[in-house]
């Protein structure tokens, strides 16, 4: 599994694109649901619902998206570990991803469940959106940077 040549995932040309599709659907669900709560913190969208209610409603779906991401991601990584590991864009993506997850399940969770509003909510929502958008940028740039 640690050598690209012996990895069974590289046997078919279709497996990687399939994994990518799961990855895309996964982050659409994960980042999308996180985005809904972030927009609410910014006062956009579902304003009739309390932030706490919204956060609780979407939480299981965020986890489902995250599960898809965490299953497909490492599998894709394993198909060409050296390339990813050495790719600066991938490295930045992983750092942003770790920060985004950490932020999401600590500070943002507290602010959302407490029913945050005003300056703090806007700040927390913006930071969250920026972190997750950085993850997306990092992901796209993998193919555009480093030695292919």
């Amino acid at each position: 599994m640690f050598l690209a040549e012996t990895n069974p995932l590289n046997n078919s040309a279709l497996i990687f694109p399939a994994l990518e599709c799961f990855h895309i659907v996964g982050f659409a669900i994960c980042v999308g649901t996180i985005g809904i709560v972030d927009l609410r913190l910014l006062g956009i969208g579902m304003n009739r619902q309390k932030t706490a209610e919204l956060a609780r409603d979407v939480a299981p779906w965020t986890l489902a998206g995250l599960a898809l991401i965490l299953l497909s991601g490492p599998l894709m990584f394993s198909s060409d570990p050296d390339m990813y590991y050495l790719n600066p864009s991938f490295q930045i993506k992983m750092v942003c991803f770790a920060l985004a997850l950490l932020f999401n399940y600590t500070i943002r969770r507290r602010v959302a469940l407490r029913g945050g509003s005003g300056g703090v909510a806007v700040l927390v929502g913006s930071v969250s959106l920026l972190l997750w958008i950085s993850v997306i940028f990092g992901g796209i740039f993998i193919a555009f940077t480093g030695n292919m």
Partner: protein
Amino acid sequence: MLTFAQWVQETGIATAVRELWLPYPIILSLHLSFIALAAGMILVTNLRLLGIAMRKRPVADVVDQLRWPKRIVFLGIIACGLLLASSKAEEYYYNVFFWIKMSLLALIAVHGLAFRRGVYNNAAEFDRTGRIPGNAKLAAALSLVLWTGVAIAGRGIGYIEPPLDKLHAQVLPVYIEQGR
């Protein structure tokens, strides 16, 4: 169509996006960021119509409150998409996944029009009767399938090699260097 594609990609902005290596991935990343936000809103709407998620919230709350955020995010997606497509118009002309994606988007437009009166402008009625009718659930299910198709087709676009022998435009030297 082909000459139109060739004309579009020769415009100043399209050429700029294509010939510098940085704008295309930036615009693509913005495209995907807007898509992620839109995906969340579309998912939540459809799950509510299917009665799977947010069951305690009125359907009208979900459908009506997300209407304008969705439209604004869609504008962002389309703006990015136009820049991306125009920069590689001739290449996309030959790309089957691009045409599949466009066809699915056209179907989504038809879907939106078809279900507008009965479902999307009618959410208050569902809350009044406490029942979500079959056609609303059909609209939601179709929406999920179509949008997933768009996402997959969109990713597919990047998998097809540009037909270098057919293209008139200056292709990024990095493609040739990498043997792509």
